[in-house]
């Protein structure tokens, strides 16, 4: 097992922010190890030029580095063919690419099945298709925060053309049984999409074992730079699809009235790509591999176990946390409320029984209070409003862990939470 204290030293931001700084918002974006920051700088210092078609040495080097980054990412997620890796900006773009390109083939009455625990990025792109008469169907969760597989199964129908689910929920931490869901999808002839934004950074992921048709994830959540993300897609599907954006690099030939496309994956990469971003992501993959994804996963689970222990020990009044307690099916994400804060809607009336809702402390206050102690957590709907409402609340506070977090971070979270609960209680 690696030394996690040692690993934290690879992330220079902690030296710069002061060693006491506790960053618990990695589900939003991760910090970057020096090797990633250096890979980006080095590209600009030594190799910068545009990729494709340049026939001078510098451009050929850049093209090769870009291609090697693609291979590296491909290997990392168990794809046997780098042609299946499309570089995009982020998971969101990957899912929009699918909504546009797969959407072209859908007709009124077709259904897209997702789950109530999806991130907005796996909801809104599909809502765009509603104008065409396509129906968006939501599979529900069970009270323990796991996906209700019976409900999902019952909502699969011959009209279900696409089944798109998150691998790990960014609010509940639930790890969904994607192999099983994929089987349901494929038995039904549906295209199976996995949102891997919260899984690829935190656990070993193999797209061929999962047998998903597509997977989306973001570099910036896995120690890589902002601006780069990945769409994995099975080659034969990518080859059949219409391109998403048109322009340079993605064409083979352009005539006045028609064009022909480059081979995959270039067909989906219009314009100058984020070359430095891809190289930075590849450095992040190297770094994660050097720790070992099994170790990364185990560390996350260990911190979650400690979290549950601290939760029991500190016994903060009104604290309610979400998601499965079994750390075997749990990503390193801990969302909670202190007191209940149900949603407030247009037809509701306010009551004059005192400020706030009972003894609740608003997540914004929790986050501000923790921030004052040098602990960064996120509060709000975490880009999952339908789920937040399903949990009968309007916002939660979320602490999320990664390789640079330590047991001491978890303990400090709970000590500060306890103090906040005292300050804000009335």
């Amino acid at each position, binding site marked *: 097992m690696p030394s996690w204290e040692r690993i934290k030293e690879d992330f220079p931001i902690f030296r710069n922010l002061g060693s006491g700084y506790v960053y618990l918002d990695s589900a939003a974006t991760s910090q970057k190890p020096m090797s990633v920051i250096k890979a980006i700088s080095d590209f600009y210092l030594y190799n910068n030029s545009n990729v494709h078609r340049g026939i001078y040495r510098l451009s050929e080097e850049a093209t090769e580095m870009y291609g090697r980054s693609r291979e590296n990412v491909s290997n990392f997620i168990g794809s046997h063919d780098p042609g299946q890796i499309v570089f995009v900006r982020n998971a969101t773009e990957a899912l929009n690419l699918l909504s546009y390109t797969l959407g072209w083939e859908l007709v009124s009455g077709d259904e897209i099945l997702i789950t109530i625990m999806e991130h907005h990025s796996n909801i809104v792109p599909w809502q765009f298709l509603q104008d065409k008469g396509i129906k968006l169907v939501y599979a529900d969760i069970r009270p323990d925060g796991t996906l209700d597989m019976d409900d999902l199964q019952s909502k699969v129908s011959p009209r279900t053309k696409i089944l798109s689910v998150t691998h790990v929920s960014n609010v509940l931490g639930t790890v969904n049984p994607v192999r099983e869901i994929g089987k349901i999808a494929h038995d039904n002839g549906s295209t199976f999409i996995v949102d891997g934004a919260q899984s690829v950074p935190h656990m070993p992921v193999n797209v061929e074992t999962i047998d998903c048709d597509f997977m989306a994830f973001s570099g910036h959540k896995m120690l890589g730079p902002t601006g780069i993300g990945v769409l994995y897609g099975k080659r034969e599907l990518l080859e059949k699809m219409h391109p998403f954006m048109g322009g340079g690099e993605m064409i083979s030939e352009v005539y006045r009235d028609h064009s022909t496309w480059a081979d995959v994956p270039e067909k989906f990469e219009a314009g100058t790509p984020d070359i430095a971003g891809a190289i930075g992501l590849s450095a992040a993959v190297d770094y994660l591999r050097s720790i070992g994804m099994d170790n990364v996963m185990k560390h996350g689970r260990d911190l979650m176990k400690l979290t549950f222990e601290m939760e029991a020990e500190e016994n903060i009044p009104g604290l309610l946390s979400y998601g499965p307690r079994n750390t075997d099916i749990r990503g390193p994400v801990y969302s909670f409320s202190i007191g209940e804060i149900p949603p407030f809607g247009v037809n509701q009336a306010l009551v004059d029984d005192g*400020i706030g809702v009972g003894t609740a402390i608003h997540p914004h*206050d929790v986050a501000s209070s923790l921030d004052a102690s040098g602990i960064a957590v996120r509060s709000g709907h975490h880009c999952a409003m339908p789920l937040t409402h399903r949990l009968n609340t309007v916002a939660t506070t979320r602490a999320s862990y990664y390789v640079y977090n330590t047991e001491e971070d978890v303990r400090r979270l709970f000590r500060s939470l306890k103090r906040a609960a005292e300050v804000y209680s009335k």
Partner: protein
Amino acid sequence: MTDVEEKTEILMDHYRSPHNYGKMESPTAELLEYNPVCGDAVQMFVKLKGNMVEDVKFIGRGCSISQGSASMVTDMARGKSVEEIMGITPQHLLNLIGLPLGPSREKCALLPLNTLQKCLARLGRENVKI
């Protein structure tokens, strides 16, 4: 005690024991505004006498900033003319609160002032005799 600590104390006092809290019988105007994203909600009640705010009350739910600010805004509004209230700038309220609020929390702080001003503006538009 630093200035920020002092200002925090003041706001927290308003949050814990809000001034002018409660519904009002037959107000001249009332308005409920809320932010669906964080659930903060404020309902303002105003009683005018001529052009002057004779009484103002609020009820609400939400974070310490939105509710503490609502309490401070109602204190500030009482006895002022409609024009004076319409002239209160967001920056004035933020200065009064005096805390280094980030952009997200400024929205919370300004909800009560926005609600009160909207409520009064609507009165004008609806041509209610004021």
